[in-house]
């Protein structure tokens, strides 16, 4: 038998994180499933003896350090924990903005700082960091979330540049809307803000991540589906057209 590998999955109580944790558990990984939602975590770990649940706020650096110290070597990180309230920029309480930045951006920093040194020491590992297409294409009511995810992108780019050739593979995954419980709730609440789009199935996003891990390490960004790829390209080469289109689909009438 090959040695058991350990994966740390954040945001593992629902959506992308939960599915990532289950697929890794199915594949025989030891999975450390992290979230704040104990009920959701228990559901993810149900009848999975190789899934271990940990309640932890990724926005709390000390808690993340303590968690990772107790886990032992982590071979893959799937960092999916994030929050994304839909609020107009000037109406969003500052505390709320800080909270989004702490969870979405600093959460990523905390997880990377706790796990990457061990990977560098061992000369290998995989860091899958979830960003969002919103980081390249901010739309109304996503200012704090998009800003935090854009920060994740540049942080991942700098990190990848600093550690090129180290054996640690970094992926910055930028999906468009993903069909998760969180997205469904947001879309039901505010169809205009989510562009009246149907989310892409989470399994498809994770398939794209799996395929990306087989590509050369320098291939940092993962745009999981064709529509996401087209929008990301169009945003670069035809920003005016994209702005007009986004304005149309996100207008409330």
């Amino acid at each position: 038998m090959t040695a058991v590998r350990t994966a740390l999955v954040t945001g593992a109580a629902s959506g992308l994180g939960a599915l990532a944790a289950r697929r890794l558990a199915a594949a025989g990984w030891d999975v450390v499933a992290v979230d704040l939602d104990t009920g959701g975590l228990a559901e993810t770990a149900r009848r999975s003896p190789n899934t271990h649940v940990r309640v932890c706020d990724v926005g709390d650096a000390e808690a993340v350090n303590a968690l990772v110290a107790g886990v032992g070597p982590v071979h893959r990180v799937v960092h999916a924990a994030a929050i994304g309230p839909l609020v107009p920029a000037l109406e969003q309480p500052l505390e709320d903005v800080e909270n989004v930045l702490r969870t979405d951006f600093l959460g990523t920093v905390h997880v990377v700082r706790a796990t990457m040194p061990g990977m560098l020491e061992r000369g290998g590992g995989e860091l899958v960091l979830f960003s969002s297409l919103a980081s390249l294409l901010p739309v109304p009511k996503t200012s704090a979330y998009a800003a935090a995810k854009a920060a994740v992108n540049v942080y991942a780019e700098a990190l990848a540049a600093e550690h090129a050739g180290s054996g640690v593979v970094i992926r910055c995954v930028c999906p468009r809307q993903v069909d998760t419980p969180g997205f469904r709730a947001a879309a039901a609440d505010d169809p205009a803000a989510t562009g009246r789009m149907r989310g892409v199935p989470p399994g498809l996003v994770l398939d794209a991540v799996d395929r990306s891990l087989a590509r050369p390490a320098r291939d940092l960004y993962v745009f999981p589906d064709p529509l996401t790829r087209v929008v990301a390209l169009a945003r670069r080469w035809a920003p005016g057209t994209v702005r007009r289109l986004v304005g149309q689909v996100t207008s409330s009438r």
Partner: protein
Amino acid sequence: MPAPPGAHPIQGDRVVLPVEIRDAAVASAMFPVPAAAAQAVIAYSGLEVVRPLPGRAVCSLAFVRYADGDLGPYHEFAVAFLVRPPDGPPDSPPDGPPRKVGAFIHWLPVNQAFTLEAGRTIWGFPKEMADIRMDLASRTKRCLVRVDGRTALELHVRPGVPVPSGRGAPSVDAYSCMDGVTRRTPWTLSPGGVRMRPGGALLKLGDHPVAHELRGLGLDRTRALSVSTVDRLRMTFQEAAEVRT
């Protein structure tokens, strides 16, 4: 507290039937095999292989990733033969349609202990512990089964073309035979994201008693009838009933 009817104690937990699988992904291949040799392989069950063409039976190989279901997350590989429903009671309801072709599960390695115990005790499925690696994200789906550190077999399934999943949930009977007892398990499947093509399988057989049996059927030299992949499969498994053969 006594277990309610249809509840089975497994590893300190209770599995209640029907067992539901909410999210699985599958790749499979069907091979034509010599009927007499196939019949000899499954003779222990008392069942009879279906012969869709004279002298030919059908052997089906499949690999499944269970992501969300009542038996937890795990990988599975299945070796099955299409069989005739056995005659005699308990069998077709007198006014119902005749029972359809069934799938006799000959070998069913899995990689997790919970499903291993549940499968063997609840339905008599021939589950065995194995190391099962899968790539279901690429266009060609791949699976490698290793038992006790030795390769048993490796199956590659090439991409097909999308086909309609059909309405409703087709129901099949799964047959198993453990410790001399043959059982029938009613089984429903609702697939989504189905692709098929003729041929399209590559099978490498290694060193395992079942691999030797499949080699004896000429499976490593036979072109598959067809292959299929299912992105999202929901299934239910009912209580097994003993069949007299």
